[in-house]
């Protein structure tokens, strides 16, 4: 028997406990379903709970163990998925009314991989509509509440994934990151997230927001868990033409290894612009890294100041085209109009929320005849300059250290102006535009007991290096990653 509460066990602990027969997958799954029933109303993090499917998957894991089959790396581990990952037979809404009743006929590549590794999928998680947002307030199904303070935003767009991981309503979760959408909510909720190198994880079955930026990434309670999840979901997929061929490394083996000699690049200006608590936490993390044998190096990304402008042109341009398929013809919401054009207009007007419409319009404009060169093409050129900035920076250091966000979680409803909201992504956008991997982990709490996120960014395909540094830092910092349980039936 396990001497701790089941929901206190992390991915690697649970997988061992199930494999060793100390606990059954069904017991674990029941424990999580109970917690979801009890605490989800306060968080609004799950959009769909698949109790039946989860228990059946758990029973299958227990049967396989009884037959002596070798357990997968996630055997019996309950996990949850952001609701833009396609799941066969389970609703996949993308947090949008336009897909409210949509049920995909196929599993995303990452979902197939999780199932094959023995994971038990609990359900689908709330998110900003079509992954567009930094607060989860853009969900058509209401915002997620931050488990550390229910009046605050969990971050976005993978707010549900970060919240359930922090609140232990799932052992870990998969989110997606286009401009910071796993990292920023992980920072707000005090958990760890990895945005892999572009192409490292298949996008097949991830409902597209901005195709040249989207990556699926794990959100977990600790670095080792995130590393194990990444190892399961990474790898080449012939169904995604942008999927990378390079071999998947043993990320978990990087945990608890020596750091000496690594050069850590620091962006001085970036740290200076943060809230004091964030600045202090980042500076103290840097001292820890120095104590562990790392050498700090001052670097700069001269074009990073344009990242927000570039991102909101490139991402919206791609989104305006990617979201054209939601036309009310084959699936999703259809509002009948007087003729074809009217049906398109009514369906899309009723189906999409304000922020999605804003971005579709921005992107349509950026691609329009007469504006393409000035906006889209210029943005692509500046994007190339940002890629070069990273290349130059990585000539002088092995990885970059920076905040995940300028400050901790803000209050729901606090950030009203879209531009101020876009500025939340200032530290996460550059890595997205460059396609390089980035890891966000908790590095402290504010006086008001809100988590502070730290970000490590490396060159392409250096996820192993990021895991190594993050794991050592995690041990050195000893930060709590579990949010308090919300009061029974609590509502912000």
């Amino acid at each position: 028997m396990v001497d701790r509460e089941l929901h206190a066990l992390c991915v690697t602990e649970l997988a061992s406990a199930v494999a060793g027969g100390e606990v059954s997958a069904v017991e674990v799954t029941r424990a999580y379903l109970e917690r979801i029933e009890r605490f989800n109303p306060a968080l609004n993090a799950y959009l769909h709970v698949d109790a039946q499917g989860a228990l059946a998957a758990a029973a299958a894991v227990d049967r396989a163990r009884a037959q002596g089959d070798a357990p997968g790396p996630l055997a019996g581990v309950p996990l949850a998925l952001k609701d833009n990952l396609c799941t066969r037979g389970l609703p996949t809404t993308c947090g949008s009314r336009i897909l409210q009743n949509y049920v995909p006929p196929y599993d995303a590549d990452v979902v197939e991989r999780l199932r094959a590794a023995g994971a038990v999928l609990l359900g689908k998680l709330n998110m900003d509509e079509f992954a567009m947002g930094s607060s989860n307030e853009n969900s058509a199904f209401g915002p997620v509440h931050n488990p550390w303070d229910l009046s605050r935003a969990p971050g976005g767009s993978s707010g549900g994934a970060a919240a359930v991981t922090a609140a232990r309503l799932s052992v870990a979760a998969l989110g997606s990151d286009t401009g910071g959408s796993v990292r920023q909510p992980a920072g707000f909720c005090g958990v760890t997230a990895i945005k892999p190198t572009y192409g490292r994880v298949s996008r097949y079955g991830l409902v597209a927001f901005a195709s040249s930026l989207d990556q699926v990434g794990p959100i977990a309670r600790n670095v080792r868990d995130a590393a194990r999840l990444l190892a399961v979901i990474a790898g080449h997929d012939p169904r995604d033409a942008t999927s990378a061929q390079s071999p998947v490394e043993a990320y978990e083996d990087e945990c608890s290894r020596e750091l000496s000699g690594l050069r850590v690049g620091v962006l001085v200006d970036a740290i200076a612009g943060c809230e004091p608590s964030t600045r202090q936490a980042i500076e103290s993390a840097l001292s820890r890294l120095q104590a562990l044998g790392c050498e700090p190096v001052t670097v700069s990304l001269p074009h990073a100041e344009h990242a927000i402008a570039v991102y909101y042109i490139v991402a919206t341009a791609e989104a305006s085209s990617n979201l054209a398929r939601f036309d009310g013809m084959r699936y999703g919401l259809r509002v009948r109009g007087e003729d074809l054009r009217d049906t398109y207009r009514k369906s899309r007007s009723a189906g999409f929320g304000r922020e999605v419409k804003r971005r579709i319009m921005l992107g349509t404009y950026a691609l329009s005849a007469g504006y393409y060169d000035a906006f889209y093409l210029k943005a692509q050129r500046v994007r190339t300059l940002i890629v070069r900035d990273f290349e130059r920076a990585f000539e002088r250091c092995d990885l970059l250290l920076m905040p995940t966000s300028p400050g901790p979680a803000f209050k729901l409803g606090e950030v009203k102006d879209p531009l101020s909201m876009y500025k939340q992504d200032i530290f996460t956008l550059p890595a997205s535009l460059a396609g390089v991997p980035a890891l966000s982990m908790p590095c402290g709490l504010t006086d008001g007991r809100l988590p502070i996120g730290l970000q490590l960014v490396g060159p392409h395909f250096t996820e192993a290096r990021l895991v190594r540094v993050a794991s050592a830092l995690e041990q050195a910092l000893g930060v709590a990653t579990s949010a308090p349980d919300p009061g029974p039936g609590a509502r912000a």
Partner: protein
Amino acid sequence: MSAFEAVIGLEVHAQLLSASKLFCGCSTRFGAEPNTHVCPVCLALPGSLPVPNRVAVELATRAALALGCQVHARSIFARKNYFYPDLPKGYQISQYEQPLSEHGRLEIDVDGAPRTVGIRRLHMEEDAAKNLHGAAGGTRTLVDFNRGGVPLMEIVSEPDLRRSAEAEEYLKRLREIVMAVGANDGNLEEGSFRCDANVSIRPVGSSVLGTRTELKNINSFRFVRKAIDYEIARQQAVVSAGGTIVQETRTWSEVQGKTLPMRSKEDAMDYRYFPDPDLPPIEIDPAEIEALRRALPELPVAKRARWQGELGLTAADASVLSAHPAVAELLERTVAALTALPGKLEPAKAGKRAANFIQAEVLRHVRLEGLSASIPISAAGLGELLSLIENGEISGKIAKEVVADMIATGREPREIIGQRGLSQVSDASLIEQAARAVIRDNPGNVTAYRSGKQALLGWFVGQVMKATSGRANPQLVNELLRKLLSEEA
């Protein structure tokens, strides 16, 4: 003489003959039950992604090389954005700024006036699905996605054509080339080879392009000519009456014999082309391009020249027999068989014999369906049959019977001749016996012949042939009859 000349450019959409669609594994087969060749990718379900079909890329590259195009080592798929129910993604994946190939040319020859027509570009794109209006007898429109995502190449000519006859000739030459390289089946009926025409007029001698109209729904060579001729006349009438041409898309109405306005430039959409971020650039190694170039088959125009030179074919014979790759191959292999058989007929003779015989006796039995052809006779059998005629073992007349039998039963010519006793009689004594009997039984005609009605010789020959079941050597019959009829004078 008209004060105007027409300027015509053609855009051809030709289906690439790959077994699967351009970006997914679904079948491209025509004529299946609606929505049976579909998957998450070609239905544009959320989360699905396109993966390019390398076979389609190779076929398009072959066609581009055959048209003398420069094939780019790196080309880019772009999205053409517009809303329509037959376009499930809300955009068509096509090529825009960096197409697969550019700067080709095609030689045409109308009434002995050879010309070179420039090919601006040849690029790849996916076909749209098919809207079925009034399906199931109602007023609803249903969509069949079987065709959606089928690979096409779009071949855009320069505005180098001046007459409808040239346009038709261009299309015929283009069609036979894409068929010869195995890239397209040339099937206009099933829509796997479709054409739009851009037509404008200008004063003779001007080098400025006039305002053009785009003609659609001209999916037969005949319609192309009629629609272009109509449109040139219409534009001339408008301009002559002091009017101006409106840039618009017009559709050919075969019923009315007119082009009718479809949409004007004001309705023209901004397609917001941009590189498709789901698809990395298509890269083709220059060495691979060279290998594909070297592997190209002989093209129809070269084939015809060679046939006229080496095989003694007329231009007309060469044109008919080179129109389909399978027929061309039948001719070549028949000639090869014929020249290899005992008697070793020289190529010029063998070619002429094979060409005549195939056109007279075989072509009507050949069923062509796209690039595939069912030819109910083997080149080896045909070569052997022709050599039997050549060696005097059977007559040309008997050969017709034999070939009909070969086509019906698939048997070898010698077997048919042996079993049915069809071999030619060259034994002079047997023929003489038959000839004497004919002379004996027809004294009236004999008298008439002898009194100067020489034309009756043919009648006597016919009677002898009939008496020998057509097996007598006609030359011998002729000689003997002439001799016998004059002898007894």
